[in-house]
């Protein structure tokens, strides 16, 4: 009966399997071989653990490992706590939709651009120091490392500025599925304080809904490269940065310990997720014991308000960071204690025009291609589910999240080896392919819920009126879902623009995007040019989000049910 549906589903499965899963498997396989010392290109054909011994003996290895664990686990843990506290304190005053709008700039801006902005704001010669200078009596930048500090504090902070808004969005959308107000009233009527109801009643229901996104955040924080280059300690850096350096070292034999490091990086993420699962199990036990005791507890309110205050302060610094990108790109003379530039100029833009125009067009091409391909695949997947009238199997859901849970550094080198063998490496096609691995999951996740929220009876009504599958898709579903489709596309654009490692590895240094350029420039001295690239890098996703907001509003200006936020 659903022959066409079966064909579509088989096609989608083949594309996902061959296009997304196989590359990851090949990447892990090739990296794993090199980690075991097998590198035919260098004439190494015997498996051994020498690469691992070399890795452990590399200078700074232990420090890199410690930095990775501290910044990755620390930033994730703090982000979850702060986001939870903030939601508990303000949830009643904020709707999911207004929260999402407020968070959009923080979600849209790429990690690298945020990192550049934070460096501008927090550096000894940055905005914060300039504002404090009159009070502290500084006429020169103070002499302590506030960025690239050896503890990784700046990196931890930078990660949190990006991850807290993401978690807030995820928690707010989870809360919209729970009757919070009524449960809060019921709990308080039983004598529990607001904060305690939140911890004992609401959070245990929220956690299963946000578990996967928290894993994604954890995997990302443990293996981030671009933000760690800009904000993290430089010598020794975090493990992911160190591994990237070893991979790109002039000495090709460094690939062996680098591969071991890449596999170690993947294992760290795996272990961290396992740790989180164990913590969840233990927490469940303890929580049940705690709840059964029935203690009304002390008020948790001060803690919640402190968390909200910290979140607000972080967001303020984040906004300042975004602003500083634009200000620096337009600054000409700006000596230290001055809070604003003494003279402004468009020269940073005009002087570097050739460079940023090229990087911008490459970035646009990549973003358009990856978001477009991902959207087409996501729609085909969802339509296939509709035609088969099936809901998604858990293994299929796992496939979608897989690329987000395996650290990029863990398989990109090996994937490049695979691409070299089929003659794809170093070209724009290879970069597009590698980026789609990470763009598709986000597009798919963003589109799935709104797609399923579409009233199936409306589609039945269309079928009963004699319209076939194609017409139901093109004339009913897609126009009705135009807003979530464009939002998913904007998210895809933002993810593509933010990609650093896939471009670096697959482009073999020949594909320059706004992100690779911004990261390279950030270590240089000219903040104005860095500001130009980072402004563009942040501006592109903003423009995509704005378009996703405006286009449906214009297309459906006379359709009240569609010009608002809901899709039904």
């Amino acid at each position, binding site marked *: 009966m659903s022959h066409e549906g079966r064909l579509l589903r088989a096609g989608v499965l083949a594309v996902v399997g061959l296009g997304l899963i196989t590359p990851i498997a090949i990447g892990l396989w090739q990296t794993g071989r090199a980690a075991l010392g097998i590198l035919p290109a260098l004439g190494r054909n015997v498996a051994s653990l020498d690469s691992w011994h070399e890795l452990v003996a590399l200078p700074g290895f232990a420090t890199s490992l410690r930095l990775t664990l501290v910044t990755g686990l620390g930033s994730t843990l703090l982000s979850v706590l702060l986001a939870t506290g903030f939601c508990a304190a303000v949830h009643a005053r904020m709707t999911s939709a207004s929260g999402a709008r407020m968070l959009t700039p923080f979600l849209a801006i790429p990690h690298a651009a945020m990192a550049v902005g934070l460096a501008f704001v927090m550096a000894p010669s940055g905005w914060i120091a300039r504002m404090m200078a009159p009070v502290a009596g500084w006429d020169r930048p103070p002499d302590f490392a506030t960025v690239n500090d050896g503890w990784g504090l700046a990196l931890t902070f930078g990660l949190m500025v990006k991850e807290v808004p993401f978690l807030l969005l995820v928690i707010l959308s989870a809360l919209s599925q729970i009757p919070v107000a009524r449960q809060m009233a019921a709990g308080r009527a039983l004598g529990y304080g607001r904060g305690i109801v939140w911890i004992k009643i609401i959070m245990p229901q929220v956690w299963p809904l946000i578990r996967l996104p928290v894993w994604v955040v954890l995997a990302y924080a443990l293996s981030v490269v671009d933000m760690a280059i800009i904000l993290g300690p430089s010598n020794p850096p975090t493990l992911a940065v160190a591994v990237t350096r070893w991979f790109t070292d002039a000495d090709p034999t460094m690939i062996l310990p680098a591969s071991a490091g890449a596999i170690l990086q993947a294992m760290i993420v795996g272990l961290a997720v396992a740790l989180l699962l164990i913590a969840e199990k233990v927490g469940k036990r303890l929580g049940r014991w705690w709840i059964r005791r029935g203690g009304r507890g002390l008020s948790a309110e001060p803690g919640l308000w402190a968390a909200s205050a910290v979140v607000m302060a972080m967001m303020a610094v984040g906004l300042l960071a975004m602003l500083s990108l634009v200000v620096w790109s337009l600054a000409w003379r700006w000596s230290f204690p001055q809070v604003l530039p003494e003279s402004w100029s468009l020269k940073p833009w005009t002087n570097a025009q050739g460079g940023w125009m090229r990087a911008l067009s490459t970035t646009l091409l990549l973003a358009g291609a990856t978001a477009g391909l991902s959207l087409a695949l996501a729609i085909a997947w969802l339509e296939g589910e509709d035609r088969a009238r099936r809901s998604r199997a858990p293994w299929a859901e796992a496939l979608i999240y897989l690329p987000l849970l395996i650290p990029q550094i863990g398989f990109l080198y090996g994937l490049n080896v695979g691409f070299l063998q089929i003659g794809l490496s170093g070209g724009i096609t290879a970069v597009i392919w590698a980026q789609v691995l990470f763009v598709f999951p986000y597009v798919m996740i963003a589109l799935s819920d709104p797609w399923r929220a579409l009233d199936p009876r409306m589609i*039945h009504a269309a079928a009963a009126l004699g319209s076939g599958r194609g017409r139901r898709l093109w004339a009913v579903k897609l126009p009705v879902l135009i807003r979530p489709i464009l939002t998913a596309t904007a998210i895809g654009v933002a993810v593509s623009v933010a990609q650093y490692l896939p471009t670096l590895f697959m482009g073999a240094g020949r594909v320059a995007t706004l992100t690779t350029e911004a990261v390279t420039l950030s270590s240089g001295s000219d903040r104005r040019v860095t500001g130009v690239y980072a402004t563009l890098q942040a501006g592109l996703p903003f423009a995509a989000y704005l378009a996703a907001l405006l286009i449906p509003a214009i297309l459906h200006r006379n359709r009240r049910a569609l010009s608002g936020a809901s899709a039904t």
Partner: protein
Amino acid sequence: MSLDLDALSIRSAHGGALFSPLSLQVPAGHVVTVMGPSGVGKSTLLDAIGGHLAHGFHLTGTVRLNGCDVTGLPAEARRIGLMFQDALLFPHLSIGDNLAFGLPPSLRGRAHRRAAVEAALSQGGLAGLYERDPATLSGGQRARAALMRTLLAEPAALLLDEPFSKLDAGLRGEMRRFTFDHVKSRAVPTLMVTHDPDDAAAAGGPVIALKGLISP
């Protein structure tokens, strides 16, 4: 024209049949009412007849339309119209375009199609509302627009799924009359499921009680 169900039975994914096998005949222009407690599978029955059954449900027995077995046909080829308690007008189309969506493609020419839609609009008491946004209409207007959209598709049979339950009491009587008058004047065999005895009384046809076999 007639709609015939022959030993129709639906099994759920977990194996049990929802209700005992159902056989009935709906002659042209008549309304047969199926009643039963909520959860017994009334809507699932209509899904099965219309071809909208979700994955996991298994259908045995046959659905015949004017003597032809349509059980194996996809929903869009069955020509069985469907009405719900919500109007479910397409939110991105104007009222007129919603009606035009149902109009068979065999009616050619822009002017002809427009005229057919305008005629249906005035029959439905919606004259002059072609360009209106469905979201700006009253509940009664939306319900009439949905019925006209369904009838314009020239259905060979009509399924009504608690069609009046969301209308307020005053409007309900008016909408019942409106619906049943149209059904009878066009001689469409109509099957209605409802739990409101007044609906059944207004329909004036036979009433069949659907007895559940398992709890859903």
